[in-house]
């Protein structure tokens, strides 16, 4: 639309100034809110859920990082921790849960089984890694990972979120399915 080169430069400058003055501080603030308010979905796929329970217990206390213990509805959650082996029966459910979570959403793959299939690499019913159905942000190795490893993964995820660009929320309509 803008034909004049000078005007285009001016608009570009103004955009830069706005980005510098408003966009970046806002981005920082929102990201700061996000990293300290990661609410996990209550989805257990296998045995690593025990160590997740231990991690939210008193000794390791994930709530220090703003992670609530088992949280009810996935509509209010940001973090999907795939706790262990994903088999062929639960895989569609994991994807369905992921789809129903509101943006922005993050996924942590917990344990060797959900990273690669792990011990169950030759089982007929186990997915070779949950990253084939949902995008994964952080992988935690271990079988099962110790609670310290979960905390480390959280910090890694926080560092990742810090570098993200803020996108305003948008209104979407999605089909809810009752399985």
């Amino acid at each position, binding site marked *: 639309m803008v034909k004049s080169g000078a005007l285009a430069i001016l608009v570009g400058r103004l955009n830069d100034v706005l980005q510098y003055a408003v966009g970046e501080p806002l981005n920082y603030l929102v990201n700061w809110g996000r990293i300290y308010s990661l609410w996990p979905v209550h989805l257990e796929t296998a045995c690593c859920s025990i160590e997740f329970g231990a991690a939210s217990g008193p000794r390791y206390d994930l709530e220090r990082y703003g992670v609530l213990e088992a949280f009810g509805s996935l509509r209010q959650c940001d973090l999907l921790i795939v706790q262990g082996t994903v*088999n*062929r*029966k639960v895989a569609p459910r994991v994807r369905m849960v992921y789809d129903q979570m509101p943006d922005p959403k993050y996924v942590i793959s917990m344990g060797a089984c959900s990273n690669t299939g792990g011990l169950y*690499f*030759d*089982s*007929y*019913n186990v997915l070779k890694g949950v990253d084939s159905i949902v995008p994964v942000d952080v992988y935690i190795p271990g079988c099962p990972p110790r609670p310290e490893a979960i905390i480390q993964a959280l910090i890694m995820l926080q560092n990742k979120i810090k570098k993200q660009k803020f996108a305003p929320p948008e209104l979407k309509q999605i089909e809810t399915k009752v399985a």
Partner: protein
Amino acid sequence: MSAQSSLEQSLVQQLSSQFKDSVRSSSFKAKRFKITVDETIILKVAEYIRDQLGFDHAASVTGTDFPKDGVIEVVYHFTSYSKDDLRKVVGALAVRIPRDSPKIPSLINVWPSVEYHERETYEMLGVTFEGHPNLKRLLLPEDWSDIPPLRKDFTLPGR
């Protein structure tokens, strides 16, 4: 040891004498005994074991595939809670059925505890339990279309 063995021995003998012709084989060792019968009389044998011998529940139903012999061996393990002297004994009631049409009568009316075990055996080995009210898929995913996984000719994908 001897007193112990005599209990199992007497149990096996009792069963063998009751169902003379149908008993294919029987064996016993300390605290364990196993008896293999024809599939036609398994209901009667099970009822006899429950009512006369006092084994009041089945602990498991399982099966083993023997492609060489062309049979599947279905084994019911049973034991007792109500009789003190039988608690330490685990008995096994085995049936050998042909591999291509594995069908046996369900024991759900004799031992109700076999319900889920029979469903598991049904989907894992393809054994049909006739008379089971709810013989549906249990553990495998809904879209499973391969042969039952515990058959020996089912090979694991990674192997």
